[in-house]
C-alpha cells in the first residue's frame, strides 16, 4: 500500500527521477574508475574498465526504471494501441472477424438456450404430464 502511494508520487516527478538515476549511475562509474586508478591503472584504462564492469549503461538505467515505473501497464496500453491500429488498417478483415465471431456466439447462445430448456430444465419427475397443481377453490355464496 505504501509502495503504491510512493509509486504514484514518483510518477509525477518522472523527469527528475530519470535525471537522478543518471547521476547516481554516473557516480558509481566515477567511483569505480577512481578505485581502479588507486589499484594502479592509468586514467583512461580505469575509466574503460569501470564502464566494462558496469555493463550497458542504458540497460542498467532501463531495468532500474522498471522498478518505479508502470512498465507493465504502459506495455499493455502499447499493445492495445497496436492492436487497434492494425485493425483499422485492415477494415475488411476486422469486419469479417467480428461478423464470424458474432454469428458464432449468437448461434451458440441460441442453441444452448434451446437445449437448456428442453434437456436441462425438464422436471425431475418420471411423468411430468400427470402433475397437478392444487388450488383453493373460491367459495361462491
Amino acid at each position, binding site marked *: 500500500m*505504501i*509502495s503504491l502511494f*510512493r*509509486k504514484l508520487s*514518483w510518477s509525477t516527478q518522472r523527469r527528475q527521477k530519470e535525471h*537522478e*538515476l543518471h*547521476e*547516481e*549511475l554516473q*557516480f*558509481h562509474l*566515477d*567511483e*569505480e574508475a*577512481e*578505485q581502479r586508478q588507486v589499484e594502479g591503472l592509468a586514467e583512461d584504462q580505469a575509466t574503460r*574498465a569501470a564502464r*566494462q*564492469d*558496469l*555493463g*550497458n549503461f542504458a*540497460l*542498467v538505467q532501463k*531495468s*532500474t526504471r*522498471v*522498478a*518505479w515505473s508502470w512498465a507493465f501497464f504502459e506495455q499493455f496500453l502499447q499493445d492495445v494501441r497496436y492492436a487497434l491500429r492494425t485493425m483499422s488498417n485492415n477494415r475488411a478483415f476486422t469486419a469479417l472477424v467480428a461478423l464470424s465471431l458474432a454469428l458464432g456466439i449468437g448461434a451458440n447462445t441460441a442453441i444452448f438456450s434451446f437445449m437448456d430448456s428442453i434437456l436441462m430444465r425438464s422436471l425431475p419427475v418420471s411423468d411430468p404430464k400427470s402433475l397437478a397443481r392444487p388450488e383453493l377453490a373460491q367459495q361462491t355464496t
Partner: protein
Amino acid sequence: MGRKPSPRLEFLQGTLDVLILRTLVLGPAHGHAIAKHIQRTSEDLLQVETGSLYPALHRLELKGWVAASWELSDKGKRARYYRLTPLGRKRLATEQSKWEAFSRAMGLILNPTDQEAQ
C-alpha cells in the same frame, strides 16, 4: 583485461535484498560502497552486478525498506545514500531467520555426519 575465471556464486532469488539490508545496518551507504562491501565481506565470492544492484535498491526504496537521500560523499561528491528504515530493519530480521533456518536445513542434509556415524 580478461576476467580471471574464479568460482563466483550465483545469487539465489531474493538474496541480494537481504545482503543490501544487512550491509545498511552498518550505516548509510551509496550503491558503489554497498556492492564493494558485499564483495569484500564475502571474500570475493559474491560479485554484485550493477545491473541488478540498482534495480534492487530502487525496489527496496519503493517498498519503504530503505530511504534514499543525496549527500556529499567522503570525497566531497554528491552521492545517493541509502539508509535502513525501521520497516527495513524488521524485514531484515524475518529474512535473516528464514535464511538461517534454510542454511541449517541444507547443512543437515548435505552433511548428515551424526546420523551416518550411528
